[in-house]
């Protein structure tokens, strides 16, 4: 696919803001959670923790690890070394979609805490996964590769 024919040079910047995306997002998380809940030997707190950790790992992988765009850009891959998060809204911070994508993991974490009744082990696991997924979203980590992780 070649990008830029009739619109954005890099459609990766804003397809997450397209109509129905967040409905789809919520549904995927909810269905995944319901499937976990329906497995007999997984308790309710366990299901919530698993949902939360999987969700955060998915964020980490799709937003902060894989780079470039599935679209072939005609101006020879400006974004070849940028993660999806860095490409959002041409790198402008605190836009609506960035705010949304930061808020979702936090709210999910708070919900998980409530459903696990603040159990210590669950809390620690969930909190670590939250930190891992929130820190790379901070503006000061834009284009920064800690310890050269995922540099090329």
């Amino acid at each position, binding site marked *: 696919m*070649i990008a830029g024919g009739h619109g954005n040079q890099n459609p990766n910047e804003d397809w997450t803001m397209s109509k129905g995306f967040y409905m789809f997002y919520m549904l995927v998380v909810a269905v995944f959670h319901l499937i976990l809940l329906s497995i007999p030997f997984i308790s309710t707190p366990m299901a919530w923790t698993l949902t939360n950790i999987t969700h955060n790992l998915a964020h980490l992988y799709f937003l902060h690890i894989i780079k470039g765009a599935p679209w*072939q850009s*005609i101006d*020879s*891959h*400006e974004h*070849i*070394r940028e993660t999806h998060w860095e490409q959002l809204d041409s790198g*402008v*911070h*605190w*836009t*609506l979609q960035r*705010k949304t994508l*930061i*808020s979702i993991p*936090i*709210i999910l*974490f*708070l919900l998980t*805490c*409530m459903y696990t*009744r*603040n159990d*210590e082990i669950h*809390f620690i696991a969930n*909190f670590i996964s939250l930190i891992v997924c929130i820190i790379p979203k901070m503006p000061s980590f834009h284009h920064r590769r800690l310890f050269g992780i995922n*540099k*090329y």
Partner: protein
Amino acid sequence: MLQAESSPYIFSVLYDIIFQAPTYVIFLELSLLLLVIWIIIHKQSNGGKHLTQKQKEEIIKNWVSEPLVAEIDENHPALQNNHIVDGPIGKFITVDGIKCLNMATHNYLGLEEYPKIKENAINCIHKYGVGSCGPRGFYGTVDVHLELEERLAKFMDQEEAVVYSYAFSTVASAIPAYCKRTDIIFADECINFAIQKGIDASRSKVVYFKHNDMRDLEKKLQEQAKADQKNPKKAAKTRRFLIVEGIYMNTGEMCPLRELVELRAKYKLRLFLDETVSFGTIGKSGHGITELLCVDIKEVDLISASLENAVESIGGFCVGSHFIVEHQRLSGLGYCFSASQPPLLTQAAISALDIFEQEPRIFEQLNDVAEKVDEQFRYFTKLELKGHPLSPVKHLYLKHVDDLEESEKILRKIADECMKKGLAVVAAEYLPIEKFPPKRSLRITVNRLLTADDISNAYKIIEEVSKSIA
């Protein structure tokens, strides 16, 4: 207590959850909740620029539009040397009403001897009109295009060919189709302007090596290899390209393809060969430099060539393996976004290829004439000949003048005088934005139909004029 645990009221459950938790958990959760609220309220930063209405008006007031057409200097060379050419261009050319022997245009093979080409082109107009003005992928493809591609691939003994509608855009789109921002290109200093533009468009890192200097190239490759060893992760993601011309348009020299192929294997390079001049001129059957130097054509990753020089049509083409060529049909900008080659010109190219295949002796004749010109033109008193003996493009440099501007003026005068005396030659013109401004020269092109008399006659005219001017 018992009541609270099994309480049906959600609030008492929540109350339990919150007040049974350790304090630090509650603290963290509260601060996260506050963070969410802060994020939602936080305003998108505007780069700290908030202009008042007054400031805005001032900026608008102070803005001056640039003129659509910039003023042109009266001494601009384009306004000075205007020559008008009448009639068809062949062995002879009519410049400003004077019939001149043609050593200026790039029709090396003198295909005007074959009226069949013209006839076929005219028949093609009757059949297809003058072209659809559509790109190849969008109603622009006519069966002759496919035929030409097939014929070119067969002629060059490669898997596939892709035809562009303009020679300049051939190589200028083929390069950025492969080379991207993270790649490295090794290129000769004297590459022609189209390749330079292609390299610019690719945005890759470019390393220029000295003209035809294999030692310099190897040194630069070794430097790169060392840098790669230090950072193998990065090196694994960078591709290295080598871009050379078969015969350099700007110098008339031939590239040492055998050494280049060896370096390609040693340093894992991808080799692009531009045969703008060498296609249809050298080699036993006109296949270009790979045939002349007996290099396996599979060793070259991509060959691009022009249909405007030896073939005397308009357009260009790339040949290579199926995968390499097919990539250009979606990524070659000149292929995707410009109108297809007019069918009559495609037909002319096919007819020229017919002649190439049926009468390979024309290449031998051209090489003979080129060698003869080379022998004779070595003896100018004021001018120095450079270029490979077999090359149909040769350059005459001033022996005693090194300054670019001055030599350009003198050479233009020489060219003008020669045209008045019945010999068309040109002072090679370059744009000021060339990467390495080439030394100015008088560009000689060799036509297959030149006789020994013509050559000595041309020699006399140039010698006489250059002696009186330089």
